[in-house]
């Protein structure tokens, strides 16, 4: 589905879009330290705040004796959870999770903010004060092992106040215009809660019919551990109150460190736009994590309490270990024909529900657009058993969403193994075509990606455990496919202004490292006949345009809006230029009222004009032109808001297809040490159309790096006795270094079949995976290793531990 509904969607001549190495607009600031992030802001005379964190996996504050803390010189206040000051706060409309009480009395995971906030003259004094508090905790039952947590006799970890509204969650999901139900936490027919377990059961088609068609049953497990979100910059803010010349003294909030969420601060503090000032727009990269943390929200409140003195509150690295991927155990049953075609899917998933308020993206609601719907098989049962836990908090979303692509990746490998077929061929037999699950021929995007991927990999699949490299290590390969996603469910906005001869693109950011503003600038320049550097990007926190699109998934949809906006502006500029060119001479005077020479455009209508190479020209005679900077003396503004064309990703959720990608992996496994080396990791996405190659390649590198880390090293580990996390730092929680993973081999296709700007689609979410490397390890060794495939696990799977490896 190319971009046919908007302006120039089928454009062939690109001067700007797709170009590599156009400079990032804020790269210099970010690379040199000029850019300020939340943790960087300081204000003269500021105070410091730190929030008490629960040292237990689940506990309630019974009392806090702050006498000793307040006796420390420089410690000014201890604000407890039940302080009426918190009642002044309004709700945060965008926060990813519910907060029944702003600062909770009960903490649901180790490290959760609870109980009180201390305010002191220095951060060190805050730490002294926290240590001096006498906190009486009531330690409550906890679940950090969801296998044990599903026991109906296990004490219930969520009190009645948290479960009060649960019955209302049993309702149909959101119905799309295409007739699909999405994002239901519980269906009305789901079994009701038993202990700490709830259910979400979704049945598509007629599973009985599917099983009848099968020649054999394949049964296997896909286990995915918890991973954390590695936010580069811990959440932090500094805030104070100033005078408003309209509302009076002390009415204006100055806050830095909450970029992109000024509207949340406005709502929480009941302030209008002119009463909240925030100039800094840089934020550390986050992955689909749009919420603020308490340390970013509470500083104005604390400043107010301290008489308007600025207050700074920063999380530490250890305090910034929110979940990025919830633990999941998928027990799979597939009906398969002797030709390798899947006829029935049964996914029995046990999944961590996280702490209260966690996003359902980490538990159930991702499966509506998973890999199953890309199969010709329409008989699909997804039975999710959801266990409340005290493992951690999933804020909004995860890079791995949707999760269940990998049960298909593993399935293709197992079918290939059983039937002696190349898994690529198994995939081809199961993948439906572009129009529906009944469409027999895979989408061209898939075939093109396959062809290149095979060449790049020198693809030679072999049965598991049958090939050794010359150095003696076992050799394995794997393959997977996925849809290229695109966010067309969000409404976007763009404003462009022609002012004093220059096109301005005002934006509130945030500047989070995904370079979407640069992409939009390229699109605007392309459509306006200008160069990239001709457009002035004006960073202004008061502006409406926000890069909330995120990475390529959003850029391609949001870019479509920018494209339309640029064409709207272009039309208005040409209309204005024609209007001015055709004014009577006496209305168009030069210096000292001497008549100006006739405009070279005189006589032309707007339709007869174009903007080419920085000039407004008469199309029929390009020698007649005025420089773009003198196109018109009017200030011209264009706005465009709304939705981009609906993408296949959110129309059929896998049931229709346009742009796809393949990923490939080759590993060597040392079966004496359990060490896994990725020899090659190859990605061939059809992104439809490249907007900014540099950002796109970087995003691919990022998502693959993330993927490699979670399959080889990353794992969130808690003490079984206390539920306390043991590796809450980047020494013990290992993300790979550049020495641990190879450069990603990539070739990007542009078949123009996505319907974002110029036929573009995104690449990020569905390149993230949990089992491509794991599948290659299986191909090498013949055994399955649950991720992360650390040497101890590999050795255990190979039977080379005398007693056993880690759990």
């Amino acid at each position, binding site marked *: 589905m190319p971009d046919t509904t908007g302006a120039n969607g089928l454009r062939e001549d690109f001067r700007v879009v797709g170009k590599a190495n156009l400079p990032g607009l804020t790269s210099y600031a970010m690379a040199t330290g000029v850019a300020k992030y939340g943790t960087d802001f300081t204000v003269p005379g500021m105070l410091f705040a730190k929030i008490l964190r629960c040292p237990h996996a689940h506990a309630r504050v019974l009392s806090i004796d702050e006498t000793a803390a307040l006796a420390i010189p420089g410690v000014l206040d201890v604000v407890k959870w039940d302080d009426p000051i918190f009642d002044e706060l309004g709700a945060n409309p965008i926060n990813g999770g519910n907060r029944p009480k702003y600062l909770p009395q009960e903490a649901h995971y180790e490290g959760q903010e609870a109980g009180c906030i201390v305010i002191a003259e220095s951060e060190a004094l805050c730490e002294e004060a926290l240590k001096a508090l006498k906190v009486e905790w009531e330690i409550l039952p906890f679940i950090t092992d969801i296998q044990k947590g599903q026991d109906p006799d296990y004490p219930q970890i969520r009190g009645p106040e948290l479960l009060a509204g649960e019955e209302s969650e049993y309702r149909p999901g959101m119905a799309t215009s295409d007739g699909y139900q999405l994002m239901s936490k519980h269906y009305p027919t789901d079994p009701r809660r038993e202990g700490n377990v709830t259910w979400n059961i979704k049945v598509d088609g007629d599973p009985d019919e599917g099983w009848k068609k099968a020649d054999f049953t394949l049964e296997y497990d896909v286990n995915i551990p918890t991973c954390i979100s590695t936010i580069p910059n811990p959440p932090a803010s500094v805030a104070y109150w100033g005078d408003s010349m309209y509302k009076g003294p002390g009415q204006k909030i100055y806050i830095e460190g909450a970029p992109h969420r000024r509207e949340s601060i406005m709502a929480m503090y009941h302030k209008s736009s002119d009463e909240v000032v925030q100039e800094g727009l840089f934020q550390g990269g986050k992955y689909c994590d749009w919420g603020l943390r308490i340390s970013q929200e509470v500083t104005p409140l604390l400043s107010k309490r301290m008489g308007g003195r600025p207050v700074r509150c920063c999380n530490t690295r250890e305090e910034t270990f929110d979940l990025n991927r919830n633990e999941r155990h998928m027990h799979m049953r597939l009906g398969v024909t002797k030709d390798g075609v899947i006829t029935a899917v049964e996914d029995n998933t046990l999944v961590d529900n996280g702490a209260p308020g966690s996003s359902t993206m980490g538990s159930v609601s991702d499966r509506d657009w998973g890999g199953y719907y890309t199969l010709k098989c329409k008989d699909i049962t997804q039975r999710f058993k959801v266990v409340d836990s005290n493992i951690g908090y999933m804020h909004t979303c995860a890079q791995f969403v949707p999760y269940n692509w990998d049960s298909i990746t593993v399935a293709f490998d197992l079918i290939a193994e059983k039937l002696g077929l190349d898994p690529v061929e198994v995939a081809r037999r199961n993948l439906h075509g572009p129009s529906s699950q009944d469409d027999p021929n895979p989408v061209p995007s898939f075939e093109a990606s396959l062809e290149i991927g095979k060449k790049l990999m020198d693809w030679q699949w072999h049965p598991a455990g049958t090939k050794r490299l010359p150095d003696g290590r076992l050799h394995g390969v794997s393959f997977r496919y996925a849809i290229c996603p695109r966010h067309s469910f969000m409404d976007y906005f763009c404003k462009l202004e022609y002012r004093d001869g220059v096109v301005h693109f005002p934006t509130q950011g945030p500047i989070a490292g995904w370079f979407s503003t640069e992409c939009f600038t390229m699109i605007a320049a392309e459509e306006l006949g200008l160069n990239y550097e001709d457009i002035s990007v004006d960073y202004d926190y008061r502006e409406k345009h926000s890069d909330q699109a995120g990475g390529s998934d959003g850029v391609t949809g949001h870019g479509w809006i920018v494209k339309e906006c640029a064409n709207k502006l272009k039309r208005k500029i040409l209309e204005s230029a024609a209007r001015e060119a055709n004014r009577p001479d006496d209305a168009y005077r030069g210096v000292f009222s001497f008549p100006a020479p006739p405009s070279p455009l005189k006589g032309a209508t707007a339709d007869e004009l174009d903007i080419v190479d920085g000039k407004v020209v008469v199309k029929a005679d390009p020698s007649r032109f005025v420089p773009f900077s003198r196109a018109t003396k009017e200030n011209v503004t264009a706005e465009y808001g709304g939705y981009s064309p609906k993408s296949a990703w959110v129309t059929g959720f896998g049931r229709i297809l346009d742009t796809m990608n393949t990923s490939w992996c080759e590993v060597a496994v040392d079966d004496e040490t*359990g*060490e896994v080396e990725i020899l090659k990791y190859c990605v061939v996405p059809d992104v439809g159309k490249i907007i900014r190659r540099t950002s796109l390649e970087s995003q691919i590198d990022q998502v693959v790096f993330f993927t490699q880390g979670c399959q080889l090293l990353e794992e969130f580990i808690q003490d079984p*006795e206390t539920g306390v996390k043991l*590796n809450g730092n980047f020494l013990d929680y290992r993300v790979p*270094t550049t*020495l641990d993973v190879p450069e990603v081999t990539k070739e990007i296709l542009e078949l123009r079949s996505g319907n974002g700007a110029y036929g573009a689609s995104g690449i990020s979410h569905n390149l993230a995976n949990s089992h491509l490397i794991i599948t290659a390890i299986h191909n090498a060794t013949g055994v399955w290793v649950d991720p992360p495939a650390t040497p101890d696990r590999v050795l255990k799977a190979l039977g080379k531990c005398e007693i056993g490896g880690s759990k």
Partner: protein
Amino acid sequence: MRPFNHLNAASLEEASAALREPGAVAMAGGGDLLGALKDDIAREYPRLVVNLKTIPGLDGIEIRDGKLCLGALCLLGDLSRNETVRAVAPMVADAAAKCASPALRENTTLGGNLCQLPRCWYFRKLLNRFDCARKGGERCFAMTGDNRYHSVFGPAVFEGCDGKKHACIAVNQAELAPGLLALEAEVVTSARTLPIGEFFGVGLMSATVLEPGELVTEVRIPLPPAGTRMAYKRFSFRKSIDFPVVNVAVAILPGNEYRIALGGVAPIPRRAAAAEALLAGKELTPELAAKAGEAAVEGAKPTEANAYKLQLVKTLVKRELLAL
């Protein structure tokens, strides 16, 4: 980080005197101490940090009296590049080159590497969340908890501050220890000279037998006889910025005298005596190397979670022997 006093020691005597006071801790490169201070892992926060880097004359590298003498304040980066060290004790240089990260190797010292506290995640958990035996508490939490990185040779038993015997299964992961152990180095302190095999120990907030105020000043390696071959291998889950899960040093001296030292597997670095005895005087063969690997883990008592370390030791010992 909480407030503390800081002293730039001008001499060993000044440093020793200051460190005899309760609540004083020594800092060389700070690679170990700064993390401990930031995470506030101890029962009591140090009142005084004594900077040893300001003491002159403790960073030399020279051959003296038939020994390679390495000052305690030698930077690991310098050790890794020094031509004398590379010629006399290449496995010590190799170990220094693999430690931590490039940036840390230019700050951290030989003495600090040998004296570092255990990396046990219970011991290191911030705010002294687990008040374990090594801090004066009753228990070793790793014994019943997640001990995948801990000792496969059982616990160390030591006397706690209550006068009772306590156990700890944290391992010593000092990168340079196995190499120095295999070369039978000696450690010179401000008070005595010790064979390195007697230097490591398990005590309250300590990984050595150093007394309060006692400081390492030098490490001396007897010059290996001509024809000595040696190799060092570390195995870590990550290739940089990671501590060794297992590290092995192997030396073969003329006359087929074998020395094998292991780190990361026990509360203190250990010689693989059974493997050395098995090999003594014999020409190496692949079969013998494999048997030596088996012998290197003789007497091991792994837990369910850390038995993989035995396989690593066996493989590393075998491979390093065969590589020589």
